């Protein structure tokens, strides 16, 4: 019995090491150059070589919409797919051509493990309006 226990421990370790990369390999990285579009607000994600080159989206702002484009959003590998997060400020353009303004954005999201789609939340506060936390989804288009 005393001899079997260390063997079992070793076997467990070996199995976990062998299974580790296999499990991780199931998470596919979004390929550089691909674009994802979705809703609401014409969400657009463009993948670059070291993260997302662009995350653009619109939100309803009173009678018009406000659109922002975030640049260089980092991607982080997780077990459930590549995750993105941005908390900072962005320049907004209003659809009614009224003067734009800078506002704050809190964006989170995650790509599916196959990297075919992404979903997340966004919250915006800009001079003319603010939003509650909105859900967005996007699918790969090219």
């Amino acid at each position, binding site marked *: 019995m005393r001899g079997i226990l260390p063997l079992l421990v070793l076997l467990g370790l070996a199995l976990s090491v062998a299974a580790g990369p296999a499990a991780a390999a199931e998470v596919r990285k979004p390929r550089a150059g691909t674009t994802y579009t979705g809703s609401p607000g014409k969400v657009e994600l463009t993948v670059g070589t070291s993260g997302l080159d662009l995350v653009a989206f619109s939100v309803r702002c009173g009678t018009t919409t406000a659109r*922002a*484009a975030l640049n260089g959003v980092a991607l982080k590998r997780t077990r459930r797919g590549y995750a993105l997060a941005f908390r900072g400020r962005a*320049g907004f353009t209003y659809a009614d051509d009224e003067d734009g303004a800078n506002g704050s954005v809190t964006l989170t999201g995650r790509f599916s493990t196959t990297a075919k789609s992404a979903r997340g939340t966004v919250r915006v506060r800009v001079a003319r309006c603010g939003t509650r936390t909105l859900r967005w989804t996007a699918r790969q288009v090219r």
Partner: protein
Amino acid sequence: MIPQPRRAVLVAPALALLLLVLPSTAFGQATRTWVSGVGDDANPCSRTAPCRTFAGAISKTAAGGEMNAIDPGAFGPVNINKSLTIRSQVEAGILASGTNGIVVNAAPTDKVVLDGLDIHGAGTGAPTSLVGIKVLQARAVQIRRTDISRMQAGIAVVPNAASSTRVTITDSHVYNNGVGIFNGPSIATSPFAVTVVRRSLIAENTCGVVAASTGPNATTPNAGADCGSAAGPLNQVSAIELFDSGIHDNDTGVYARGAASLVDLSENYITGHSAFGLRSVGGGQLRSFSSNVIVNNGASDVPTVLGKQ
């Protein structure tokens, strides 16, 4: 026995003093701020703790201050509402998608410098992003060493206030847009807008350089048969001085619309336009101060030739 003052009585003035001091130190704006590809907008935008976006850094930059990029990266669109310099010696990009790149909407006395930027509209096909640099109001805007591409309009000087605006563009490359450079007041009370272009390349746009005293068409200046200009009835002074630049391979090179629009040309190459090298509509004035090379265009209106002074 002398009664001791209560501790709260002693602490309260100290707390009040601290509160008075805090706003000026903790929330003060710096004269020089920094952005970095690995920065964070929660940072103070200092050299050692840079911000991530221009929009984040501008709120921490004092009027008349300067924002710099530490390393190459894209730092997002920004709206400028005060005297400010954005300067970069490395590639400082702004990637837009359905938005403007930079909007200058400052006080009539403010001066803005944009130096070393790369403003690009995302996607392929017809540009869907709006204006690379849109100037609504400022005393003067200097644009240097800046690349702008894939926007509906590269640079649009469209003052919307009762004050004059002067924009100078040097050593820049404006290519593959709807309209390259557009100059035209957008309201009747705006006295004049002047844009000076020097040592720059304006290529492969639908329209290269446009002076429109009739102002821009609806939404942004968006290229079409009218090169982004409106039909009227506006007729405010719109002047472009175009020196030592290459305007080539646009559909139309230089376009002047409206009796109060004026384009002065000197030492430019205006070549390879499929429609017009020079085009005057509605009394737009084109004046050549010699040494312009205007060849290999589908057609071209003839400028008024004036001698070198």
